[in-house]
């Protein structure tokens, strides 16, 4: 059987010149690199294949096969190629070649926090609209992202263009929604149904994350910065009130449900004081306890909060 990747195709080493390491993921490093043939700057995501002797990691498989479907959208990072190479020990590695983006939303928010400035309301609106549009595109193609957080939202600070990245935890959903792993998603942006052990979940988990990101853009602080699953739930309950069967039918049947301290819901304006009325309304619809009642990404794009936004170039 012939070796994969043979023929006249250039290997990663021949095709690219690594410039610097810009990050590290679960399965390998991310580099800024220059394509030798064109001089174009790209991001190379290196994937080690034989770490656990189980071949290509599932996250890489999902990311590539999903990005094949989604890379047409301007708000999803573009996967340009997949190259094969070898590391120093002669082991096979895969390089995912992405378009290069200068920064991410986490760094963007941090820069405002460090200078003590607030993110301009129109910038927040534009970024949120782009995020909703990207999420709607994913959901429209039957894909849940499952790990939306500022670090996974790439940005071009010059054009204020936002793109969803890191679809390693994403997956296609089917009807009926299957049982999914609940050990996913960075804690701060994790939906309450996931924290409470629901194994059947839907697009609403991404919308919860979008709501948390929205609040963080306004306040420059994480909305629910828990350091354990329990603490995370308590953070949520303190602001939104401890859920019960009235506000969220079926909540007490979830696997991780216990008797929690009883808190009454606070107004969202206490947590996000500088957000206007329409923004608060949208945020409240994104942070509904009952997943089926949470606003969809498509509906969010039509919300009155975005009415005064020039959407022509977004």
């Amino acid at each position, binding site marked *: 059987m012939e070796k994969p990747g043979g023929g006249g195709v250039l290997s990663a080493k021949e095709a690219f010149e690594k410039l610097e390491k810009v990050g590290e993921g679960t399965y390998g490093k991310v580099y800024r690199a220059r394509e030798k043939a064109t001089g174009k700057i790209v991001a190379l995501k290196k994937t080690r294949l034989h770490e656990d002797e189980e071949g290509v990691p599932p996250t890489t498989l999902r990311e590539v096969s999903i990005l*094949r479907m989604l*890379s047409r*959208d301007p708000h999803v990072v*573009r996967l340009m190629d997949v190259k094969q190479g070898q590391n120093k020990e002669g082991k096979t590695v895969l390089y995912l070649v992405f378009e290069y983006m200068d920064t991410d939303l986490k760094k963007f928010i941090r820069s405002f926090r460090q200078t003590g400035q607030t993110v301009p309301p129109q910038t927040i609106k534009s970024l949120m609209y782009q995020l909703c549009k990207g999420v709607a595109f994913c959901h429209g193609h039957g894909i849940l992202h499952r790990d939306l957080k500022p670090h996974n939202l790439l940005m071009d600070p010059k054009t204020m263009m936002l793109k969803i990245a890191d679809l390693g935890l994403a997956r*296609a959903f089917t009807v009926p929604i299957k049982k999914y792993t609940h050990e996913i998603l960075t804690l701060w942006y994790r939906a309450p149904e996931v924290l409470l052990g629901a194994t059947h979940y839907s697009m609403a988990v991404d919308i919860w994350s979008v709501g948390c990101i929205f609040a963080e853009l306004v306040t420059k602080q994480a909305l629910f910065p828990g350091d354990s699953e329990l603490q995370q739930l308590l953070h949520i309950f303190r602001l939104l009130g401890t859920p019960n069967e009235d506000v969220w039918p079926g909540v007490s049947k979830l696997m991780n449900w216990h008797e929690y301290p009883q808190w009454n819901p606070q107004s969202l304006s206490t947590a996000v004081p500088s957000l206007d009325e329409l923004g608060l309304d949208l945020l409240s619809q994104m942070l509904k306890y009952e997943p089926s009642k949470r606003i969809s990404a498509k509906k969010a794009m039509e919300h009155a909060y975005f009415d005064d936004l020039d959407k022509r170039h977004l």
Partner: protein
Amino acid sequence: MSFGWNLQAPGHDLHGVYWSTCDGNNFNNGNRKRSRISYYHGNSNIHNNYWAEHGVYSNVYHFDYGNHFQCDADPLSLKRRKHSSPICENNQKYYLPSTVQGNIPSSVNFQASPTRSNVDTSVSPICKLDCSIFEDKELVFMSRDEIDRCSPSRKDGIDVLRERHLRYSYCAFLQNLGMWLNLPQTTIGTAMVLCHRFFVRRSHACHDRFLIATAALFLVGKSEETPCPLNNVLQASSEILHEQDFTLLSYLLPVGWFEKYHDRVLEAELLLLTTLNFELNVEHPYTSLTSVLNKLDPSKTVLVNLALNLISKGLQSSLWLQYKPHHIAAGAAYLASMFLKIDLTAYHNIWQEFEATPSILRDISQQLMELV
């Protein structure tokens, strides 16, 4: 759902091809039936009687865990190609975007179906020079004739009938292996479709179908969140292929065979990925079939079950390379209704629900009939 797979076509006794004799129920109680395959453990050669019957004696596949199937040059293919790819590239049948279809005059007799409704046909403002190799690579559907004529295996002297039997054999193997590993039917089905896609691009003469099938099932397990440890997959496939308990295989096979097999499967996984350009998404007709038929009359469970059985049989064919899932669902429903003498035309607009034309229904049901 488990099905008995009777894959041997009437009038064809093909030796050296894996025929599943498994009955789904036997896997649940630990009573695993052994399958039949001509593996000669003495020198590990498989002599393929098909070639002997056709007077081609020089094509012998040497099985060894280091190199797997090596092709000896045979009279029908003197020059071994390094990369087999489909010959017919101009005749591919693309499905037109719905925006285009609206402009086609009704007098034109075309057979295209609307694209999936969720495909965004708008052009994103991206410079074409920066185009990703993955962009605009909508799945191409080919006609059965194109698949049969353009298969790379044709250049290596493997005719249509022979290739069809090779297809049945790796499907039977996958069904057996998947059930052995307790994998869901959709995972097994997806692995079958990936193998079909692979062998439309690569020749059977140069690639061991059981190795590719093993890699495909392992790969799909990971991509569809039903992962199976590689060692379990290798162990099960070795037991099935050699008809021996795994503990005995270390005595029967050369030292280090398992490690070599392990490496070969991982190589095959990469080959599959690069050959398929990482296209691992497979839509199955089950959902559209049940949703449409249950909408009509939820009491017709016999019809639904028979149609589901037909779809599962259809996985052995190249239908998934020819038609969209809802068309396959329609063809299966149509054939099932004919078998059961249920008149589905009584239900208004049923075939429109499936977006299927009479010619599509006829063609799919005809191909499914050949498998029954």
